[in-house]
């Protein structure tokens, strides 16, 4: 197996607050490889966005981060700000959720795209302008010259997200982190943006870390999935396996909570299966499985001992007492 592009080991993130240290991510490990897409799935508050920000060192000063984040073997945690800055944009590109507010309203699109290039590459003048036009064309913007001279508020949400992707990929980084890239967009535009991401990935063979709560997006783009609950990974598998045979009750719940056209026989209506209860607050559960309170298969052992991630089949890991017991049964 080739060395992974991004190797995250036992990542722990806690935020200092008036009430002490609130853990948000509690021991997360995963690997991202070139040309592959890893999706981190979880609901709000599960710690997925924090994970993304911690990789590039953009968490606020109140955050305490532990563990290892290895980029091509190089440790990122503890790296000097100056070095991190060089990596941001050049080695790791980020796309955020809110295209409406992620672009500076008082600067032109051209200004912001050029900056993405100029911060890491020695390019000026006509060459720089040509490159920025090229970048816009690559994300499917039809009239790049005009768009370069416009301001963000003159563009639609979909266009802005395309610009964001262009900015993130400006320096051809080997890693693209997309944090909920389509959540704020219309459904029709979502499909276009996802297709764009996939297309760009195929072109440059970059590794994509996709952060989302939307399983539809996961189905479209991901090769491998990590399911996050309350700051911990509860299941990790290839995307097909996750959808065909979800092992963890939470994953099953997530899948059951989706609607699909044609899922119910004509004339009837199937109730959306919801997962009762709500996710615990940061640092909420001390003992036992964090999901125990909402799990349909809960067992006394679940309340006492926290399940570790254990192999369950060839390319899968699950953190559930019952799942691993059942697998061996």
């Amino acid at each position, binding site marked *: 197996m080739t060395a992974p592009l991004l190797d995250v080991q036992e990542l722990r993130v806690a935020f200092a607050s008036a009430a002490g240290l609130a853990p948000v991510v509690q021991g997360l490990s995963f690997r991202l490889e070139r040309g592959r897409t890893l999706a981190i799935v979880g609901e709000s508050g599960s710690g997925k966005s924090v994970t993304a920000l911690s990789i*590039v060192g*953009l968490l606020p000063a109140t955050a305490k981060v532990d563990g290892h984040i290895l980029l091509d073997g190089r440790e990122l945690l503890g790296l000097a700000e100056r070095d991190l*800055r*060089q*990596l*941001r*944009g*050049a080695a790791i*590109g*980020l796309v*955020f959720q*809110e295209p409406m*507010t*992620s*672009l*500076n*309203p*008082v*600067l032109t699109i051209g200004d912001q795209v050029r*900056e*993405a290039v100029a*911060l*890491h590459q020695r390019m000026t003048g006509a060459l720089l302008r040509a490159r920025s036009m090229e970048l816009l064309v690559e994300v499917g913007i039809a009239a790049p010259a005009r768009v370069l001279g416009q*301001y963000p*508020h*003159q563009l639609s949400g979909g266009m802005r997200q395309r610009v*964001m992707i262009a*900015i*993130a990929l*400006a320096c051809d980084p080997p890693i693209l982190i997309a944090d909920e890239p389509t959540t704020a967009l219309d459904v029709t535009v979502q499909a276009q943006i996802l297709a764009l991401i996939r297309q760009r990935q195929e072109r440059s063979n970059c590794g994509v870390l996709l952060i989302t709560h939307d399983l539809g997006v996961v189905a479209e783009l991901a090769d491998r999935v990590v399911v996050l609950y309350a700051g911990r990974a509860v299941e990790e598998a290839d995307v097909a396996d996750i959808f065909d045979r979800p092992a963890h009750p939470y994953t099953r719940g997530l899948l059951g909570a989706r609607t699909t056209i044609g899922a119910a026989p004509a004339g009837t209506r199937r109730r959306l299966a919801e997962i009762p209860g709500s996710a615990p607050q940061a640092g909420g559960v001390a003992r036992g499985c964090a999901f125990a309170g909402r799990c349909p298969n809960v067992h006394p052992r679940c309340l006492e001992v926290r399940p570790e991630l254990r192999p369950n089949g060839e390319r899968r890991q699950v953190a559930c007492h019952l799942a691993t017991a059942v697998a061996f049964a």
Partner: protein
Amino acid sequence: MFAYALRRLLLAVPVLGVISVFVFSLLYLTPGDPALVMAGDQATPDDVERIRVSLGLDRPPLERFGGWIWRVLHGDLGHSIFSGQPVTYMIGQRLEPTLSILAAGVIVSVLVGVPVGIAAANRRGGPIDRTLSVAVATSYAIPVFVAGYALAFVFASWLRWLPVEGFTPLENGVGPYLRSLILPALTLSVLFTALIASVTRASMLETLSQDYVRTAAAKGAGRMRILFHHALKNAAVPIVTIVGGGVATLIGGAVVIENVFAIPGIGTMTVDAILHRDYPVIQGVVLLTSAGYVLINLLVDLCYVLLDPRIRY
């Protein structure tokens, strides 16, 4: 954009209207007969009658107001009761010192206040930030003339670096001109700087928490670039607003500290006018300064267009 400018201009008209009505009616707010008051103690009944006619007091109010506005728009603000000189001329004489102090005060305040505010926002809770909070709190508790005396005490009386009072016009040399400006301008700006720094800090903090700052950081932009290229322009609107609004306070401050530093400006002229109940002068000063203030705010409004492209398109 042109439409925006026009709209702003039109909005200023009713404001100017209210100001003129107020200034105009000042004379008629005095207890007693205005003509008598204007004429003074030594006047004969004939003088009083002459003044009454010249003021148009025998004509209906609207006509009086109309006539007054007409004269004002032609640059005629009446004549001083005390000296007999045209008010416009008198104001013109006194303009240089007052404007110099005001301009110097604003420039210093902005040049010092904005960087301090940015520094305070950059390191929240740091030494500059904390000093700033204290400075702002103190600035609300020290009247401007007290600050003037304090500064004069230190720099003029004790250290003898600067002249205690008086004003040297520009034509007498740039050096002496600036030297005579320092203390008054410093007094004005000492208090205004804290305010500007405070607003800058708050506005920058707000801007720095925006998503696009995170995007800039994700691109690999450094702290300086984020502060000045990305954040400052966005933070500028409230700062410019406060500077514009603060001019009113500065004008008030200037009036008072002209007394402290014995500067022959509009402030001292107004104070004299009060002592002599010289209404035309008081009316003229209030009208002109208010109109000037309205104009400055209009310019501030137009500045917004430069700063925020969302207004333009």
